[in-house]
């Protein structure tokens, strides 16, 4: 059978899929914040970020309304999170990863230093900071899926 194609989440997804707070993957975790940024450097205020820790079975999502920022509480005992990015203007979700600490793996080994830098969360004021750039010189590495 042929797969059903993807379509954008559009600007109003929050009424359907952000009805309750689901941004805590682990109550005792650490705060991770960041900004979703378009190719002009402008914040994307109608995006949606989903995080998944397959080893721990922990999942969460955060919208970027109203200022383009997302916020999660992520596990402390986790090296890397799987990420989907959705937005108005994005016809299919994009896949990336957030490395929460310095590790070496097959994924990073295949990337340039500049590319690797886009996947690492930075320590910031007791928490973690991770910005997602959709385009341009600083574009976050997105993976085929």
């Amino acid at each position: 059978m042929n797969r059903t194609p993807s379509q954008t989440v559009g600007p109003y997804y929050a009424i359907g899929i952000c009805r309750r707070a689901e941004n805590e993957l682990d109550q005792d975790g650490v705060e991770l914040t960041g900004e979703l940024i378009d190719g002009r450097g402008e914040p994307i205020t109608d995006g949606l970020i989903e995080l998944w820790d397959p080893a721990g079975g922990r999942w969460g999502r955060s919208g970027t309304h109203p200022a383009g920022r997302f916020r999660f509480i992520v596990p402390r005992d986790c090296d890397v999170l799987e990420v989907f990015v959705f937005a108005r203007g994005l016809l299919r979700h994009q896949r990336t990863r957030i490395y929460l600490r310095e590790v070496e793996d097959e994924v990073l080994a295949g990337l340039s230093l500049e590319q690797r830098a886009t996947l690492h969360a930075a320590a910031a004021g007791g928490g973690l900071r991770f910005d997602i750039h959709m385009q341009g010189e600083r574009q976050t590495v997105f993976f085929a899926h």
Partner: protein
Amino acid sequence: MTISSDPYSGPIILPDDPNLGPEVQLDYPGYRSTQWRAPSHPLVTLPEELHRLDGPVFGESALEASDDDLTRQHAGEPLGERIIVHGRVLDESARPLRGALVEIWQANAAGRYHHEVDRHPAPLDPNFSGAGRCLTDDEGRYRFTTIKPGAYPWGNHPNAWRPAHIHFSLFGRAFEQRLVTQMYFPGDPLFPYDPIFNSVRDPRSRELLIARFDLETTQPEWALSFEWDIVLRSTPVEAS
């Protein structure tokens, strides 16, 4: 007011391209917001095992009463044409996916979303929130009762209108089965002008976004029914 400096005055609709299959064209020029949001660098290949990830999977705790009946979430009944939307969630091998979380959201009958950003001067309906969710049963079936959404204008190009649609979000069993899409209604006159619908350039794949009118499950004296099956990709996870 139309903007005279606008580079074009109508929707850019590209010709059909069956070679694209179910893939949506991410940088579809007729959908202007893609310009600064679709990734511009090539996608990077992941090791095979990262395409085999499980989950997330949701259970009954994700649901609340009336989540599958959008006409019964308030004290009164919403205005509009009452409809049933049902179908199956399958993988590419036609295996039903049970326990899949299906979430929907939509405009009301007047074409207005219950969302603060929506400024379309059409009435809000105090009896309609426009959001629902359910889990598929053992045969992969889902079913919602709702109101047929209205078409609505958007600022993409002069006199741009979205065909009536219901947004669908799905989680299968495998991480990469995640799908967010839109269901359309048969025979909509706006199809040829909608760049989002036409960003799927293979005409047969585009047809897969359109529900079928279903007289068999239409409820006499009560509600028209539409059937729409959703096919998620096959992954090694559900084959195991």
